[in-house]
């Protein structure tokens, strides 16, 4: 797997001016003097979803907080569209979703959203729009504190759509959500990524692989990998074959659930092994990759 401690700018057609730009230059940031992020540098220009990955404590939330201007870097600079993050003009280009709900208690859902609409300078119809968009009409008159974890998350995400921005920082937006709602959220985020920059952290590697175009992997507060997801090559290429009549043809010891697991040298070997199995009368139902290359980023 390739490693780029200080990657060059990513995205954008050569020579074409980027519509939006996030630039970190030598940023160290953290809490009470403890440098969680250490000398982090990268530039993002191309509208896409940039999945931020890393084990617990790697610095994902600290990165989001630093990008959002919540934490002041100990050193280095954060620029949004060329504007230092300390300036209000930079913050008005961002939309931030924290890993916690951030909703005042004692308020009903629509009251809480109106509160944030006021803070953001969003119009009153925006509240009605996001209530419809996130499907929380039935929750609008309920107190936020009475909602389930998943419902709270939906309301929290609704706030992200109150005001259109060009850069979205989403810290674990689908945690605590059921698969159906998580997919709906992913679809909304994919819609954003057509024109905007989206940084999206997740512990779900399959979700990350599904929606991410770029991966920014943090390890011990440093950039361990930053590049296209498709450029990642797993250290092992393992496929699972679900098939009828494969017993005796494929080793039984390799079976994992319904799948016969085979380690290959690369994807180019797949047609060959499939052809061999078909020739032996095996009826192949499905062939899939069993290892997510993103897992290597956690190794």
């Amino acid at each position, binding site marked *: 797997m390739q490693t780029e401690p200080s990657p060059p700018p990513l995205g954008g057609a050569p020579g074409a001016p980027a519509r939006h730009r996030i630039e970190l230059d030598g940023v160290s940031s953290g809490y009470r003097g403890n440098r969680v992020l250490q000398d982090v540098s990268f530039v993002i220009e191309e509208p896409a979803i940039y999945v931020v990955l890393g084990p617990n404590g790697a610095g994902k939330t600290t990165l989001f907080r630093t990008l959002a201007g919540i934490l002041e870097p100990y050193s280095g600079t954060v620029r949004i569209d060329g504007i230092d993050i300390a300036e209000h003009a930079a913050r008005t280009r961002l939309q*931030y979703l924290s890993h916690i709900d951030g909703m005042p208690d004692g308020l009903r859902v629509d009251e809480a959203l109106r509160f944030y609409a006021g803070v953001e300078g969003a119009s009153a119809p925006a509240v009605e729009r996001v209530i419809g968009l996130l499907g929380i009409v039935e929750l609008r008159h309920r107190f936020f504190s009475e909602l389930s974890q998943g419902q709270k998350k939906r309301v929290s995400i609704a706030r992200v759509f109150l005001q259109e921005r060009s850069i979205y920082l989403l810290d674990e937006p689908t945690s605590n959500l059921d698969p159906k709602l998580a997919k709906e959220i992913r679809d909304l985020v994919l819609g954003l990524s057509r024109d905007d920059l989206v940084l999206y952290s997740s512990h779900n590697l399959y979700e990350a692989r599904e929606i991410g175009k770029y991966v920014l992997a943090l390890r011990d507060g440093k950039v361990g990998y930053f590049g296209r997801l498709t450029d990642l090559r797993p250290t092992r290429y393992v496929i699972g074959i679900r098939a009828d009549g494969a017993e005796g043809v494929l080793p039984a010891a390799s079976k994992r659930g319904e799948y016969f697991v085979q380690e290959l040298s690369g994807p180019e070997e797949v047609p060959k092994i499939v052809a061999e199995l078909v020739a032996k009368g095996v009826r192949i139902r499905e062939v899939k990759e069993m290892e997510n290359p993103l897992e290597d980023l956690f190794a």
Partner: protein
Amino acid sequence: MVIGRLYLGIGVGVSVLLALILALGAHGGAEFGQVFPLEDPLFAVMGSTGGLLTFTSDRTKGVFEYLIAYGVPPRTLFLNGLIATATMTAIILGCSMLVGFGVAAGFGVGVNSAVVAKTVVLYTLPMSFAAALFTATVGMIWASISSPRTGMNSPLGLAPLVGIAPTVLVLIVAETVPPADFYYVTAGAATAIVAAVVVLLLLSARLMGRERFLSPL
């Protein structure tokens, strides 16, 4: 917010109850005029801790994190905590005095108006606001620079004592001095507590970086 309203309700309720008991009690005017202005700050401090609790409980809610992201300076959040505390103190004092003095006047309870007015101006009002702001300032800084804890030994559990203790102490000391010096002690103590609040506010900028307002990772 819920806990803030709860404490405000308790502060108003208990202080109004005290006013009614003293104004309508068996001994009438004498006790009301002497005791009510001296004890009212205790309830004002207790009730106004709702402002502090609202501030400190945000570390598990994360509202401040969003407000900072939207560009609200942390110092504004801190000062708003103090403003909420002062507002709650004013509400509690206003309600209890309105009811207390209103009932006393309505039932013809005889009080020495000049003495009561002097006590209110030189003790009740300054000490209530000074002690409430002192409690809130100490509590907010303390809770922010320490790891989140709950229970009676936490900053939140001990905060009311921080404000009530000097209030009671001042009363004890003031009782030991000649009557003519009583108001010098009370007004002086209130001034000293306000000065302590100012010093803490100046220190707060150094003690409380932005990360102090954020929820734990």
